[in-house]
Structure formats: C-alpha cells, structure tokens
C-alpha cells in the first residue's frame, strides 16, 4: 500500500504539472508565444516525471526508458520550433547551437530507445548489445560533432527548405559541402535500424508469449525503418509516405504518455502495453482495412459509373460494400487475433473443467487443474483453490486476492477460490459469474472425491469382513472336527474295545456293564455340549432370553441377567438370535479367560426397533485391544455388522470391560405346529 500511495502522489504530481503547464502554455500562446511550447512543457514535465517515478518505484525499466525518451524527444521537437524561429529571425549562431542541442538530444533519445528495446519486453537484455550501443553512440555523437563543427554552411536536413547560410560553428580545418552534409545527416539515422534489428532478434529468439508482446511494436518500427530508407532514397519525392509516418509519430508520444501515467497510478490494474496495442496499432490496422475496403468499393463504383447510370453505380457500390463487410469483419478478426492472441473464452474453460472433473478423483490433482482452467479460461493472473481439509495449493500468491468465492458444500464452508487480478481489463460480472460456477463445481468435486474415498474405504472393509467371516467359519469347522475326533470318537472306540472284552468273557460282569454305561453317558454329555456349542437347542426352543439365562447359569463366576419383561416371549429372526447368543457367549468366555472378572452383569433391552445387549464385568478392562480383535470378538463383530448391527468394546465405568451390541430386531412369528 505504501508504494501505491507514493505512486499515487507521483501520478498526481505529474498530471497536475501537465495540466497546469498545458493551461499556462495556452495562456502564453494566446499572448503570442509559439503554440508548440505548451505541448513541449506538458510532455516534458508529466512524461519525464512519470517515467522517473516508474523507474524508481516499479523498476520497470523498459517502459520507463521509453517514457523518458519520449519526453526528451518532445523537448527536441520544441527545440526545433525555437530553431525555426531563430532561423526566421536570422540569428544563425543561436540556430546553430539549437541545432546541435536538438541533434544531441535526438541521438540521446534514440540511444535511450535502443536501451529500452534492448530489454524489451520482459527485462531480459539482448546479449552482445552493450558494446554495440556504445559503439553506435560514440559514432553518432562523433558524426554530429563532425557535421556541426565541420559543415561549411548551416547543417540542415534535406527536408528543411533553407538557403545555405554560413555555419558560425565551423571550426574544423576542413569544410563539408551542403550535399555531403545532407547525405551524412541522412545516414546519421541509419543506426535507427538497430531498433527493428533488436526487435527482430528478440522475436526470433523468443517463445510465443514474448512474440505476442512484440508483434504490435514491429509494424511501427518497420514503418520507421522503411520511412528512413525512403527518406534517404527518395528525398523530395517521398512526401506521402513521410506524412503517414509523421501521423504515426504524432499519435505515438501522447499515447505513451497517457499509458505511462496510468501505469504509474495503478501498475497492477493497467498494463500500458495493452493500451498502446489497442489504441495505436489496432486503430491503424482498422484504418488500413477500412481504407482498402472503401477504396475497393469506390473503385468498383467509379468504374461502374462509366458504364452505368449514377443510381445504378451507387447501388453497385453499396452491394459491393455490403459484400465486403464480412471480409472486413474477417480481416478485422484476424488482425485482432494476431495482435492480441486468442481471447479467453469462459465457455471453453468451463467445458474443459467438466472434462477434468470427470477424470480426476484426487483433490491434489484436481484443485490445481481447476485453478489453471480458471486462469487460462478467464485470463486471470493467478487463481488458487484451497479446500480447508486437503489443501492443494496452486501458485502461492504473493498478494491479496481481488475476488474470493467461498466453496460451500451442504451448507458448510469447506474452502475458497481466490483470484488475483485479470491479465487484461477489469473483472466483469460475467467473469464473476463464471468463477462462482467454478466454485460450485469445486464443491461438487470435493463431495465427489470424499464420497469416492468413503465408498472405497467401505468396500475395502466389507471385503475384509467377508474374508474374516469365511475364515471364522473354517476355523469353527476345524474346531468341531477336532472335538469330535479327539474326544467323542476316542471315547466310543474305547467303549467298543470294552464291549470286545465281552467276547472273550461271555459272563457279563456288572462292573463292566457299569463302566460301559458310564462311558456311554459321558460320550452322550460330550456330544450334548458339542451340539450346544454349535447351536444350542434352548436358543431355538426358548428364545434368546432363555438361552442367555442358560449361559449365565452355566458360567463359573456369578452372572446377573436383567431383561425387559417382554423379551421373555419375544422371538426374533434366527440370525439375530444366533448373533446375540454368541456375543454373550464370547463375552462371558472373555470375562473368564482374559479379564479375570469376579462378577458379570448382562442386560437385554429393547430400544425402539433395536435390541440392545450389554455385558459388563468387573475385571481388568479391555486393555489396548478395544476392538477385541485378539479376543475372538472379531468374528462375532463381523456377524453383527453383516446383519446391520454394531458392536463396541469399552472400558466400564467401574474399571472392567463393557461389551455392547445393538441389533436390528424385528419380531417374527414363531412357527408352531
């Protein structure tokens, strides 16, 4: 801000000076002073001041040098006026000195321009140009000195119609004739060809962006080059071309001045290059195109009028003109495109963004792409899309944003779209609307990405859960098989062996019979327990509450069961009752195996459509394994979650373990006979 304020002050100073000077100048003109004087003063003060200010505060040397050079050039023109006056008044001495001053100044201006062109447009100097400029400068000044101090008569350019008058500054031992002087003075300006030369070298060695900025500068400089050559060759007969060139020169400095001043006032908001391009060359090209168009139309009209009556000729001219109109438009568009490059089209930007959104699911890639799409689509200097949770920065801005749109998702503020200034022109309502649309797209993209991430996570968890369930099933089968194989089968084999003894001893001993009976009873008990472990019949016949009471009663440590009264008769889906039963069985087993508990309390309750089961013990607590993965609860958890329920393991208030399960429990009609 500080720099801006200073810039502002300088700008005000320069504009004020210019205005005052202009007004004063006109006042003086009315009093009889030469008319170009106010113009001189205004240009001098405002332009040079603006140029120096810009050089100092923006460090933009290119424009600054151009501006300063322009101002000084204006001085030179003013001096010309005085020179004319002096010549008219016959004061040759003054005229000679003024000529020297003006020539030196103009050489200096050319050198300044070359210095500016050397670093145009982005500050990178052309290599090897410093010695070239030194040599050129020295040569030119030497030539000026030569002509000033060695010409026989007043050294005047070929286009100044003055009779040869003796040169009061002729001090050199030799004399140079009028003709020679004119040739030398003409050739003096050959180094101006360095200007287009620099530009051409720059154009050829640069990339497309630099080239675009150079294009507008080429035609005027080419014109200048052409004019100088024509000057040299045609001399008196080159009147029309010279007029055209002078027209260019007349418009050129004021536009530069205006641009420089505006550039100083708000260098960010306004790029003087743009103004010059638009104002000057666009106008010239349009004039050329219009002239061609008018010329063509009128030529046809005039030709036609020789063969047709006037009305018909006019009609023909109009028809031709109408036909030319699209051509003119096309030519105009081509010129526009050539000068300014393709104008950014917001619709294209949005279409491109749509494609990007469909292909990208990673915020880290998507946000920078959106920012780039906006930058290119609307021609903004910088754009940054930041989402608070996953910040993927674009180019980090080094200044405050000009336009900020919040990204809102489901009413929550999740981030912002920050835009810097536009590269050319100001922010229009259409631009703002486009950015706001982009912000909505950004919100959708964020929602999309988050949804995709959540879905992927869920899918992964589902897959893992399924795998666990299958493994649990297999493990269970193996356990049953082992029990049957190692336990029951062995017992039966032993009993068969016992029966085999009866073969050898036909008289049946009572003790042997008792052994047999007891053994078989034991086998029966084992199988009963096995069956209960797989799926207890009391669960099927009595329901969940009865089965839980049975579990509680069998448990080695005291278990208290609390339940809603209506659960006594309520029956649920098989899978629900099974899951509920096994969660209680598993939790009770844990209370014994791991928790070292002394009491357990089981609570069964209904909560709307859900069945809540809680098993709390007074043991050592869940420890570092809250999910109970290592405690066999993982398998039950998978079963419960597959049924749409939930399972949590937490620390009990009193320090033990609390296992809570919640199941979707719609009652079913118990099928009876």
């Amino acid at each position, binding site marked *: 801000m500080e720099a801006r304020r200073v810039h502002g002050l300088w700008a005000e100073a320069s504009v004020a000076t210019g205005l005052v000077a202009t007004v004063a100048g006109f006042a003086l003109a009315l009093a009889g002073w030469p008319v170009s004087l106010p113009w001189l003063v205004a240009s001098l003060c405002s332009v040079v001041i603006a140029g120096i200010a810009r050089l100092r505060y923006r460090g933009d040397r290119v424009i600054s040098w151009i501006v300063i050079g322009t101002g000084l050039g204006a001085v030179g023109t003013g001096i010309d006026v005085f020179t004319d006056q002096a010549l008219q008044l016959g004061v040759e001495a003054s005229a000679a000195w003024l000529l020297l001053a003006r020539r030196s100044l103009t050489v200096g201006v050319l050198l300044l321009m070359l210095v500016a062109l050397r670093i145009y447009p982005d500050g990178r100097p052309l290599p090897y140009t410093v010695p070239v400029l030194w040599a050129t400068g020295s040569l030119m000044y030497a030539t000026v000195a030569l002509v000033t101090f060695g010409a026989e008569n007043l050294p005047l350019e070929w286009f100044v119609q003055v009779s040869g008058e003796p040169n009061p500054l002729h001090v050199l031992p030799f004399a140079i004739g009028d003709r020679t002087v004119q040739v030398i003075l003409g050739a003096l300006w050959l180094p101006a060809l360095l200007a287009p030369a620099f530009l051409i070298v720059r154009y050829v060695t640069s990339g497309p962006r630099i080239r675009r900025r150079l294009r507008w500068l080429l035609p005027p400089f080419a014109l200048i080059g052409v004019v100088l050559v024509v000057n040299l060759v045609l001399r008196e007969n080159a009147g029309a071309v010279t007029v055209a060139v002078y027209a260019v020169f007349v418009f050129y400095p004021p536009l530069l001045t205006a641009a420089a001043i505006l550039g100083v006032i708000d260098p960010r908001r306004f790029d003087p290059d743009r103004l010059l391009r638009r104002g000057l060359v666009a106008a010239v090209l349009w004039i050329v195109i219009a002239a061609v168009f008018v010329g063509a139309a009128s030529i046809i009209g005039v030709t036609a009028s020789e063969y047709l009556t006037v009305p018909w000729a006019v009609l023909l001219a109009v028809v031709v003109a109408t036909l030319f109109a699209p051509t003119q438009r096309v030519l105009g568009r081509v010129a526009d495109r050539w000068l300014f490059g393709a104008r950014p089209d917001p619709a294209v930007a949005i279409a491109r963004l749509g494609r990007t959104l469909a292909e990208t699911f990673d915020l880290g890639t998507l946000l920078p792409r959106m920012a780039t799409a906006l930058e290119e689509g609307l021609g903004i200097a910088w754009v940054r899309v930041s989402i608070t949770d996953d910040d993927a920065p674009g180019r980090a801005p080094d200044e405050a944003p000009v336009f900020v749109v919040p990204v809102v998702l489901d009413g929550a503020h999740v981030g912002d779209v920050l835009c810097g200034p536009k590269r050319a022109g100001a922010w229009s309502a259409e631009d703002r609307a486009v950015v706001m649309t982009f912000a909505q797209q950004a919100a959708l993209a964020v929602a999309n990405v988050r949804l995709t991430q959540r879905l992927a996570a869920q899918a992964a968890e589902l897959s893992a859960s399924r795998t666990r369930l299958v493994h649990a099933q297999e493990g269970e089968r193996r356990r049953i098989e082992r029990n049957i194989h190692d336990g029951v089968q062995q017992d039966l084999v032993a009993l068969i062996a016992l029966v085999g003894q009866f073969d050898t001893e036909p008289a049946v001993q009572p003790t042997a019979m008792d052994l047999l*009976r007891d053994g*078989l*009873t034991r086998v*029966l*008990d084992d199988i*009963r327990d096995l069956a209960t472990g797989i799926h*207890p*019949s*009391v669960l*099927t*016949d*009595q329901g969940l*509450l*009865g089965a*839980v*009471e*049975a579990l*509680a*009663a*069998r*448990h*080695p*440590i*005291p*278990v*208290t*069961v*609390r*339940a*809603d*009264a209506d*659960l*006594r008769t309520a029956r649920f889906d098989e899978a629900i009752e099974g899951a509920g039963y096994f969660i209680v069985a598993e939790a009770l087993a844990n209370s014994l195996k791991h928790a070292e508990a002394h*009491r357990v309390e089981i*609570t*069964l*309750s209904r909560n709307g459509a859900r069945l809540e089961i809680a098993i709390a013990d007074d043991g050592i607590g869940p420890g570092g394994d809250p999910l109970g993965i290592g405690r066999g609860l993982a398998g039950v958890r998978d079963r419960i979650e597959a049924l749409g329920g939930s399972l949590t393991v937490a620390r009990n208030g009193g320090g033990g373990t609390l296992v809570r399960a919640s199941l979707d429990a719609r009652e079913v009609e118990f*099928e*009876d*006979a």
Partner: protein
Amino acid sequence: MPEPLRIAIAEDHYLVREGVRHAVENGGLTVIAAVSTAVELAQVVERERPDAVVTDIRMPPHHRTEGVDAALAIRAAHPEIGVVVLSQHNDPAYAMSLFREGTRGLAYLLKERVGRPAQLLAAIREVVDGGSVVDADVVATMVAHSRRNADSPLLALTDREHEVLALVAGGASNRAIAERLHLSQSSIEKYLGSIFTKLGLADEPDVHRRVAAVLAFFDDQRRARPI
C-alpha cells in the same frame, strides 16, 4: 395281583422307542401303543386311555417341543393319566416349561435313564400316583447354577441340607429321603423345616407341591431380573 399298568410310548427314533418298550415290558408293564408323533399319541390317548405315557420332546413335524405340549394337553384333559417326559436336554429351562402349569403327575427324565430301567419304572409309578419326578442330574444342574449367585439363599444351607433339598426337588417323599440318606424320618422333617425357612418357602404337605415350590425357587434364581 393288580392289572399291569398300561403304558403308551411316543418316540420318533426307532431304536430308542424299542429300548423304552423293552425297559417297560421287562418291568412287568404293558405297552399298549408305541407311536412316533405327538398327533398319533393324542389319538392313542383318547382311544385307549392308558395309565401313563412315556414321551420324547422332539418329534415330527417341527422337532421342537411337541412332547411338552402334548404332555400338558394330556394332563389338562385327563388328569388321571401320568406323563413321563424323556428329554435329551439337560437344560432346566425345559423342565420348567413342562412344569409351568404344575408338577402333579409329571416327570422329567433325561433320556439316558433308559439305561437304568429301574429309575424309569419308578418314575412311571410315581406319576401314576400323582407325584412328580425331576431327574437328579437336572436337579443337580439347577442347584449348581443357583449356588453361583453371591446373594443366593442356598449358600446358607449346609451340605446335608443340600442333599435333602436335592432329593426333595427330585420328587422324593420324606420316607424315600430318609431311606436314601439312612436317617430317621423325623430328622428329615427337621432338615426340611430348616431348609424351607432359609429359602423362604412354605412347607407343602403334598410332595408334588413341594417339588413345584422348590423348582419355582430354583427357576426364580436363574431368571432374568426386570430392568
């Protein structure tokens, strides 16, 4: 000599059915019918009016608790017919479901009692007389379950009183208990008085009512409390 008791058997497993038939017939009783479903049992009972029924619990068509339902239906319609239920389930819940309307003339035995025919026959005779029998193993399970509660009154009983209580729950009369424990009947009565006081039960004169009271006590111990 009184006529041998007429028994109807309901069991869907062929070998077990034949085993029961043999055990009953070897005891001198007559088997008038041996069916395999509860529906057939009901028809036979209506037609033949046996003295007692020996039935399985799990039978076609659903293989759930058809036997219990049939037993209760028979008791309700024909209070003079005793029912012995042979169960594969050691769970006291099944016994309680059988006795939910009362214990008179009902016996709950584990199926393996078939291996000890004397106990099966004793149970049949008991229910014909209107008594109740609960398989000793089932009683033992009930007692064991209840003992784990820290606030159970059972903890106040002595070992001897536990023995007496178990036999009471099994459906034995005072005389049977005295014989079994080789004590005098008066000692048994003393024990019973103490037991019932400690458990907070009223001393019932009828054996089957006593059984019901004790069973109800045990059931109450294992039941869930209201929230």
